[in-house]
């Protein structure tokens, strides 16, 4: 610095000297980075955080993306195919153009891991770690086992079947190929889960013995018993339950002979058995008193099956008689020849409770060879009678603990109030494994708080562009024969485009907006990740608190907070 320079007052100043003055003293509010949960995350029953793994995928790190994904849900190739994806219903992008195809990205990552034989990331639990018993190798049991491992516990899964997978094998191959189930479950078991096949609770061992031998027991037996069905106490002699037929088809590849059939029920099982029958040349009706779902106008009495499945079934020739019920069976001897049907609806009474009303004068006859109930399943209580007390499901608290027993937990289809999806089963398994780990460390179980969610209004969507959602290729109806999977995965190019559509709700996108737009250079960019997980740091010496960065942050990651 040339200090000899002599200039008059007001005539000269050294450059950069304004930095001596801290404009931060003017501030009455301060910008702050604040992670908030994306709605996709908040609405995933498994607890997945799509925002997080999409961000990794978008940054060119597919394996890390998969690892992030399976740190929550170890079965993404499976759920990517069959989950009703409430994440997409929640997705903020739905308010802008169309929701992200999260399930397709999930499936893509799952399939990529299968293709590359990626190992599940976990360190083996210590040899003296407590040992947990899991009953049932369906998605709930497998998820619980995986999360026990991740929590440093040893675990053995017991199942009466020879193979792990549970009801996943009953979902028809055209939607979920058995090979995919195997590719995922087998690799998962290899992560360090002990599996004991051909073990039936109540036959090999009773529940109290399991309880004695293991530090904790997680029950995930699914719902293996079909609900009883009759019309005014009458059932045909050769009655086949929908689920039973599906299993039989899976095991032996044959169906009883029939030309026409009516399937009763509006859930996944009803749709799947109907589609299987149509594929085998059977003229098939589904009869259900519920409404046909319209995603834009959800009703309380909507059919439970996924709209996508229902639409594909209709395309394939399944006929659905919604708002109908069966009044009477037409029998010749004990064999069905037809049914008398009547229009009916579920309507709310004075207290808003739904109940069924049949409309007199709307009766008609449908000629069928088979009546196939698919109206729901209940827990098979063999070996755990003391726990189920003759109920249809097992009662548990929010953490999955069975009331009145310290070390017995339950999850999946078997528990009361479960919606009967793979993703819920996975979520139950994860939460319960956490609960078990905490209990074994003598920690109390906290109240489960819903996360703070970033809403569409919190984003600045000026910075995004409309872009069509990636759609998976679906086989034309004529080619949907046999077992061939009808939906293909996305291509790499499609996935690249789709990940770029993500708004990164509530998490920094490293877009540089705040850094670029702060008039005071008060946002600094960092090569090292800051403590809050972003690569930007506020320079509070100079930040005047104008709020411009918060307003222009596309992801809602900057909040202004009072600072006086």
């Amino acid at each position, binding site marked *: 610095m040339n200090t000899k320079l002599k200039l008059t007052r007001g005539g000269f100043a050294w450059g950069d000297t304004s930095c001596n003055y801290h404009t931060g003293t003017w501030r009455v509010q301060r910008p702050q980075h604040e992670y908030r949960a994306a709605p996709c995350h908040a609405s995933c029953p498994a607890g997945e955080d799509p925002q997080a793994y999409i961000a990794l995928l978008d940054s060119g790190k597919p394996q890390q993306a998969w690892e992030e994904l399976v740190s929550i849900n170890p079965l993404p190739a499976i759920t990517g195919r069959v989950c009703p994806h409430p994440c997409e219903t929640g997705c903020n992008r739905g308010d802008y153009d169309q929701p992200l195809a999260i399930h397709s990205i999930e499936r893509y990552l799952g399939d990529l891991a299968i293709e590359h034989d990626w190992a599940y990331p976990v360190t083996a639990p210590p040899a003296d770690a407590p040992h947990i018993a899991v009953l049932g190798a369906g998605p709930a049991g497998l998820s619980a086992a995986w999360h026990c491992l991740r929590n440093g516990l040893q675990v053995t899964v017991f199942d009466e079947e020879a193979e792990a997978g549970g009801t996943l094998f009953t979902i028809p191959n055209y939607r979920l190929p058995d090979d995919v189930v195997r590719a995922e479950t087998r690799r998962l078991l290899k992560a360090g889960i002990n599996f004991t096949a051909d073990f039936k609770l109540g036959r090999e061992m009773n529940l109290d013995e399991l309880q004695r031998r293991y530090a904790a027991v997680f029950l995930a037996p699914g719902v293996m018993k079909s609900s009883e069905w009759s019309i005014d106490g009458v059932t045909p002699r050769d009655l086949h339950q929908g689920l039973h037929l599906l299993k039989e088809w899976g095991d032996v590849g044959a169906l009883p002979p029939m030309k026409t059939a009516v399937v009763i029920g509006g859930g996944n099982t009803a749709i799947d058995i109907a589609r299987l029958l149509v594929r085998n040349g059977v003229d098939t009706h589904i009869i259900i008193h519920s409404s046909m779902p319209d995603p834009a106008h959800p009703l309380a009495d909507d059919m439970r099956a996924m709209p996508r499945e229902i639409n594909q079934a209709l395309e394939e020739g399944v006929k659905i008689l919604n708002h109908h019920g069966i009044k009477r069976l037409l029998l010749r001897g004990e064999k069905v020849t037809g049914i008398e049907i009547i229009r009916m609806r579920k309507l709310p009474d004075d207290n808003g409770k739904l109940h069924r009303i049949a409309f007199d004068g709307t009766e008609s006859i449908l000629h069928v060879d088979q009546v196939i109930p698919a109206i729901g399943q209940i827990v098979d209580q063999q070996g755990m009678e003391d726990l189920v007390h003759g109920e249809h499901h097992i009662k548990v608290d929010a953490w999955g603990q069975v009331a009145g027993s310290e070390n017995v937990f339950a999850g999946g289809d078997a528990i009361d109030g479960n919606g009967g999806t793979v993703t819920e089963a996975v979520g139950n398994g994860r939460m319960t494994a956490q609960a078990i780990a905490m209990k074994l460390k003598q920690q109390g179980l906290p109240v489960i708080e819903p996360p703070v969610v970033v809403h569409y209004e919190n984003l600045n969507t000026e910075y995004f562009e409309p872009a069509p959602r990636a759609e998976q290729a679906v086989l034309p109806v004529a080619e949907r024969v046999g077992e061939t999977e009808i939906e293909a995965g996305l291509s790499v190019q499609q996935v690249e485009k789709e990940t770029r559509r993500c708004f990164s709700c509530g998490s920094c996108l*490293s877009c540089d907006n705040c850094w670029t737009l702060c008039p005071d250079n008060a946002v600094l960019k960092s090569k090292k990740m800051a*403590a809050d997980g972003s690569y930007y740091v506020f320079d509070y010496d100079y930040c005047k608190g104008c709020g411009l960065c918060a307003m222009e942050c596309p992801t809602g990651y900057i909040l202004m907070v009072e600072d006086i």
Partner: protein
Amino acid sequence: MNTEKNSAISIEQLRRNQPRFEGIKSGHRACLGCGQALAARLVTEAAGPDVVVANATGCLEIFTTPWPESAWHIPWMHSVFENAGAIASGMEAALKAQGKSTKVLAFGGDGGTFDIGFQAISGMLERGHNVLYVCFDNEAYMNTGIQRSSSTPHAAMTTTSPPGSERMGKRHLKKDILTIVAAHHIPYAATTSIAYPSDIRKKVRRAMDIEGPTFIHIHCPCPLGWGHDGANSIKVARLAVQTGLFPVIELERTELIGSMPIRHPKPVVEYLKMQQRFRHLFTTKDARAREELEHIQALADHNIKHFNLQGDTMDALDSDGADTVRRGGMRWA
């Protein structure tokens, strides 16, 4: 990218290591959310270190040089309100005589450019000096307390164009300075807005590469003078472009050679209602208010037609596409 979380990042070190050139440093005294401070930051960033600046009197000059401090990181000189064009011409001649290629920039507000400094600028352009003149247009004499200039838009309220029984804010129209400047037959004259930083950068780089007089006119919302929350400066600037009230265009010699198409023109009301300087247009009782709203809408429609701004397809460089973000900040290059 280093993903190790670091709670002990030194702010001092970070300030020194920002991956960009900073022509103006922190600590300047601009208002919260000042559009002009942002614009000047973006211009000097894009122009780089090999420049000298001649600055007319006005907010920019005042808030960057609170004696004995200066926020400037580049050689900078202020003389008076009306002579930035003349000072810049002299600097350029002197540098030329020394055989130096340093680019001369001249900065002025709208008052200093449209009105009081205009003859010096006209002379500079006419003599063909190699100077990039940047006008930071906040649409009034802000530094002395919001007096109307010939850039103030029609019907806006300023302290010298108050709405009342005689008229609804400024009676006259905003001067079309770009056409006047281009009429000097200069190689490049363009408008741009702080809502589109990439556009500013692109135009500054373009002008820096041209040997001869060039002119860039930047729309800079002023929270104090326009009466909006400083947090909304970008939003207001964006709406000015998206309504057609501030056309973003490029002229070479006198020809229109480029414009930012407007994908979906927005009604001017959306822009006006965010600003207190137009609040008298939203009194329901006064019929003149309705007429003025229609008048302003007609001005916007005229701009859209005159400069052919209506976009026909989705364009990555139109008023909706030009600010699209990407992970990793690539778009601001």
